[in-house]
């Protein structure tokens, strides 16, 4: 796939995600109307849920990146600090190489090395690093990290990842509310099952309940799967920008040698980062469960792939 196909692919996936997201809200709303039986003639829950879902998706699209940056306490750079000035410089260099406008650049005061990019398009993109990354890496390695993030920006991974973050976050929230209201709510299902068609109603109810319970896990799994695939790609196209795959390999090595978790980055935005902010617990292992629940491919494999690009085995 070339870059234009990649962009188109990511745009399509973003729409699909938004569609799935809004239909999930619709589904929840329909269930409430069916289950609770408000005496109104209008499917009030459905309408509210639909409007809520659309509003969430739209505001997430517009302001999700600001929310992510605020939640990680990202700050503007202080250009008097030589290291931050250097970071600003490498990002500018890489944006020239990629031929895209200069993104907004941020720093996060966190000692654990990590970096992420967010935004809905290259024109509105932001790139953030932790203080730990600036301190741990040399110039070439910083450039490699900037190039990795820049490829996420250029092929619209950031837009897809942002929508997924919004989706995962609000589905978790909604499912939580739903479960609570089911336990404490005042339901009419008992009345309804006394009447005819009880079995069908029960089956529908069961499906609905299972969906509500599984949705947070499923959306999380999807986020991880989408993210894992794109990390290798961003590594490769980042290396293509700087023509220096070994710098990224050694950057990844240094990042993975810091075992601690990146505290300022929470679970909902983990898939945006260059390395899994949970620390190395899952990052190094491979196998069924680790593969399923990791937001990133094992770091060893990424380093090996980069080495092969430089013809070093």
């Amino acid at each position, binding site marked *: 796939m070339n870059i234009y196909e990649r962009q188109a692919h990511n745009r399509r996936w973003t729409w699909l995600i938004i569609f799935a997201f809004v239909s999930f809200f619709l589904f929840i709303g329909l269930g409430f109307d069916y289950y609770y039986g408000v005496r109104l003639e209008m499917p009030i829950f459905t309408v509210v849920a639909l409007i809520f879902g659309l509003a969430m998706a739209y505001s997430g699209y517009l302001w999700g990146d600001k929310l992510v940056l605020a939640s990680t306490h990202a700050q503007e750079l202080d250009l008097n600090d*030589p290291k931050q*000035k*250097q970071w600003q*410089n*490498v990002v*500018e*260099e*890489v944006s*020239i*190489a990629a*031929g895209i406008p200069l993104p907004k650049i941020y720093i996060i005061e966190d000692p654990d090395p990590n970096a992420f990019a967010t935004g809905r398009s290259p024109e509105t993109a932001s790139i953030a690093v932790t203080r730990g990354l600036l301190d741990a890496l040399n*110039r070439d390695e910083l*450039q490699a990290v900037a190039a990795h993030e820049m490829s996420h920006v250029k092929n619209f991974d950031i837009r897809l990842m942002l929508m997924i973050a919004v989706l995962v976050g609000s589905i978790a929230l909604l499912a939580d509310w739903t479960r609570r209201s089911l336990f404490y709510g005042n339901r009419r299902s008992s009345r309804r099952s006394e009447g005819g068609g009880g079995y069908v109603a029960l089956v529908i109810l069961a499906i609905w309940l299972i969906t509500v319970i599984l949705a947070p896990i499923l959306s999380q799994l999807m986020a991880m799967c989408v993210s894992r695939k794109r990390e290798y790609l961003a590594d490769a196209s980042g290396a293509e*920008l700087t*023509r220096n795959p070994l710098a990224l390999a050694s950057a990844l090595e240094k990042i993975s040698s810091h075992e601690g978790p990146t505290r300022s980055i929470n679970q909902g935005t983990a898939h945006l980062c260059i390395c899994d902010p949970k620390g190395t617990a899952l990052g190094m292992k491979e196998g069924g469960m680790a593969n399923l629940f990791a937001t990133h491919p094992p770091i060893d494999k990424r380093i090996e792939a980069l*080495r092969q690009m*430089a*013809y*070093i085995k």
Partner: protein
Amino acid sequence: MVGWIILGVLAAMVIWMIAIFNSLVSLKNQTLNGWKQIDVQLKRRHDLIPNLVETVKGVMSFEQNTLTQVIEARNRAISAQGVADKAAQENMLSGALRQLFALVENYPNLKSNENVSKLQEELSSTENRIGFARQFYNDIATKFNIAQQTFPTNMVAGMLGFQAAELFEIKDAAEKEVPKVDLNLK
């Protein structure tokens, strides 16, 4: 009947030529834009050099020769015209700057000077920007040239007077050196 067929074929050819013309114009403009990006970065470097020379002059007064070389190379680079000449002069300038920074290593008080290290960072960033802008320009110029030279676009390009874009090439000996590969890596 035959007349209609000929007319149809002619119309199709005209439409085809318009499409090719437009794609070539678009590539040409992208190439020009890529070239402007290089120019911006070259200018940035030209503006930084007097600062640098001013900062190190006091300490390095007896390296006058190198300093003069840098200044002269800068002035020649500013007045250079055309892609090939510009590339050649800029490469001379890169060489002179590299020599200067190699000498700075010999002066511990210069190396630890905050202004010098700031300027050094700015200049190495500029070198990278020039390199990346050149990479971007060469990629797009190559695309433009390939479009002009491959069949059947080449017929249209020839007729409409498109010319191949010159690549910004490296002629500096040091930059052409094969990079060392460390085979001891795990």
